[in-house]
């Protein structure tokens, strides 16, 4: 090995370590902590404010009040937003009064009902956790997995198949088997674009988009053909065996199941893989600086394929969680866009497993509350999607947030990702 090459390698190592250990700037711990959460928090805040403006300007009562006087209109707008966001929070967290009185009464039925909203929020967060971990892992390794939605479908197909076709297994074997099948399905769907990227340079964004639609058509076909429930005219799969259903922890109406704890466990596992193993270090090195990583002798091909496969497996688990835990069968379009929402969540959580879990909890909560809001305040649930888009804008362009809130701060490399054009590098 020549001197120059040796130097290059040492430099590469130095560059990598500097890049990977670079944290938020600041002198004290609190300053650093604030610097790393200020943008996401302000983005969420701004998103909710813009959402309330949308609620106000599309409300009829505000416009009737406007006819009287602008002051009336402002009052009406505040009322409208208070009702809407009140319903949003009571629908997702439950009302404290109800919880206290239920505990005082000691009636188990009443307690379950009082705690149902918050448990329902956790249940709704679970698929978000899996799917956004998938996207986050991709980001960490420099890949944009826009195909979580398709991987999620394929995972659901695999796990439902194992769930209904294997008969007579004990739950302790059947559940892990179905989970693994789901992860495998997703992994296959992630492996293909990963392999294509590594071998041919075909951009994973295009390929995963294409794979999404292939997965949708595949599930359409399976559900109206080979996997269709006998004696049914609807395109739905058979119901899975009882032994494959993820156990529920409380009585009805609570739907909360152990999937949530599996998701937390997987999040910890992803954190451990990324930040505590050599493999994870390689992966993050390739993600942050492929040239330096190559000099340091890391395999780009291997890490790309592995990252996409694992990312796919995580997304597959999101679908698996839904069919094994809640629906117990597969229907067309059973996912309400978890795979796409997860892109926003991964960015909001700065592609860190902890951040991703928190972001997912937030969105599970918002989605659950939005159902109540739709009923009490007649505000379509799609407002959550709009708010999400706003939050994503502010996360993606932090300069906007800095301008609005006059934050002077690190202009440094805080973005977790940059995609290097269609051509790959």
């Amino acid at each position, binding site marked *: 090995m020549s001197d120059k090459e040796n130097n290059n390698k040492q430099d590469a190592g130095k560059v990598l370590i500097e890049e990977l250990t670079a944290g938020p700037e600041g002198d004290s711990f609190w300053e650093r902590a604030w610097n790393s959460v200020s943008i996401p928090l302000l983005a969420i805040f701004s998103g909710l404010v813009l959402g309330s403006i*949308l609620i106000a300007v*599309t409300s009829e009562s505000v416009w009737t009040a406007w006819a009287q006087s602008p002051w009336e209109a402002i009052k009406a707008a505040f009322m409208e937003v208070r009702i809407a966001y009140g319903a949003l929070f009571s629908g997702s967290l439950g009302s404290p009064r109800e919880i206290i009185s239920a505990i005082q009464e000691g009636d188990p039925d009443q307690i379950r009902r009082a705690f149902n909203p918050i448990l329902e929020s956790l249940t709704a967060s679970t698929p978000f956790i899996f799917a956004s971990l998938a996207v986050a892992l991709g980001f960490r390794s420099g890949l*944009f997995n*826009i195909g979580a939605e398709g991987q999620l479908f394929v995972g659901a197909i695999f796990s439902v198949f194992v769930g209904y076709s294997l008969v007579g297994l004990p739950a302790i074997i059947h559940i892990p088997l179905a989970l693994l099948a789901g992860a495998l399905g997703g992994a296959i769907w992630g492996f293909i674009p990963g392999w*294509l990227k590594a*071998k*041919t*340079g*075909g*951009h994973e*964004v*295009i*390929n995963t*988009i*294409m*794979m*999404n*639609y*292939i997965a*949708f*058509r*595949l599930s*359409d*076909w399976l559900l109206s*053909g080979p996997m269709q429930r006998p004696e049914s005219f609807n395109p739905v799969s058979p119901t899975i065996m009882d032994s494959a259903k993820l156990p529920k922890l409380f009585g009805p109406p609570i739907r909360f199941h152990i999937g949530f704890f599996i998701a937390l466990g997987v999040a910890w596992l992803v954190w451990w893989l990324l930040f505590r193993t050599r493999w994870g270090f390689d992966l993050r090195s390739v993600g942050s600086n492929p*040239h330096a990583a190559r000099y340091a002798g890391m395999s780009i091909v291997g890490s790309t394929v592995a990252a996409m496969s694992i990312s796919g497996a995580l997304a597959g688990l999101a679908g698996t969680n839904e069919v094994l835990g809640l629906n117990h069968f597969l229907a067309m379009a059973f996912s309400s*866009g978890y795979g*796409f*929402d997860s*892109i*926003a969540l991964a*960015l909001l959580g700065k592609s860190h497993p902890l951040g991703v879990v928190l972001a997912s909890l937030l969105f599970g909560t918002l989605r659950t509350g939005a159902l109540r809001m739709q009923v009490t305040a*007649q*505000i*379509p649930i*799609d*407002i*959550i*999607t*709009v*708010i*999400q*888009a*706003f939050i*994503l*804008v502010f996360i*993606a*362009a932090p*300069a*906007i947030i800095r301008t609005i809130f006059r934050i002077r701060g690190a202009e440094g490399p805080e*973005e977790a*990702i*940059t*995609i*290097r*054009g*269609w*051509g*790959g*590098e």
Partner: protein
Amino acid sequence: MASTVIERKEIELASPTRQRVMGIVFLLLGAAIWFFFSRGVEAGATTTFDLVPGGFQSDLADWTLPALATLNILAFVSAFFGGVQLVRGFGKRTNAILGLVAGFFIFGFLVWAAAGKSMNLAGLLNTTLSKAVPLTLGALSGVLCERAGVVNIAIEGMMLAAAMVGALVGSVSGSLWVGLLSAVLTGMLLGLVHAVLSIKYKTDQIISGTVINIFAVGITSFLSSKFMQPNQALNDPGVFRPIEIPLLSKIPILGPILFNNNLFIYAMFIFLVVLHVGLFYTRWGLRLRSVGEHPKAADTLGINVFNTRYMAVLLGGAMAGFAGGYFTLGSVGRFDEVMTAGRGFIALAAMIFGNWTPFGSFGAGLLFGFADSLAGKLAILGVRIPSEFLLMAPYVATMIVLAGVVGRGQMPAADGVPYEKE
């Protein structure tokens, strides 16, 4: 970096490998025609193609073919091309021959599927063209943006938002033209968002596109379930009626297909020509492309990279808005939630498949539209191939093209890379 460049060259220039691969592909297609189609038809069966679309009066006779003989000829010629390719190679004409053989395969499929029956070929082509319109227009939007170096995966969102605004404004104003104008402006507005995010704030262009897609789904579903569903009068803009062009529409076969359409199809042809000439034969196009290929060099020569990109993305947004207008004002006359149903992404695929050129995109749009309209006919013909597989074909084809198996496309070199002025 270095190794990827070498890899690309290998795929592009390694003609012996490519020659062999293509020869085998031709042979396989020929064998497939024989194996799947020829063996599946009765000896004396005939295939009848109706050459007049439904609702038209014409003296044109049906086109009747002996099924088996036709299929055998198609199979033989394909295999013959394969042999020639393996032995001698077609050189530069390989791609043309590939298109021809693929065409044989599709035609063979039709002959087989309609053996012993009658199929309205003209009707099929008519549906193909109307399905190709939003795909082509969307792809043109992509061509405009990406030739200037800005990746646009927000075609879907722009089309969806424009479709809704077009329907809403069209209903409120009572004028289709005002509706169409508002659709185009909506596309432009979202294009402006995309441009500001990706050019000014240097946001990753894929994220910026994703934002627009998410936003469009959210806002259109929100407004439509808040206003348009409870009040149907807000969702009834009407549609642009077909205009029959005198004389030209009397040309046999092609006349009724091409010259009896509504505004959108004629506009599509005009845009195709204008964009092709504009991009490749004018100073404007040269500047736009140079910004997409090598922004630094363009900047050195005095071209304003930022302004050029803004202009391209705004025009691309307007084009996507026009395409969105087609959904509500050009076809069904009503807005439904998420009605674009992923066609923006097929348009993206068509753009890649069409090698970032207007006419290539149109060809790809036709091909994908054909797969779509054929999928709807399979059940009627009683063919036992699941139509879902045909619907998958565009996506699979795009992945194959992207992988460089049949030759790699020439994407703009600086596509997706934000420009930093030094």
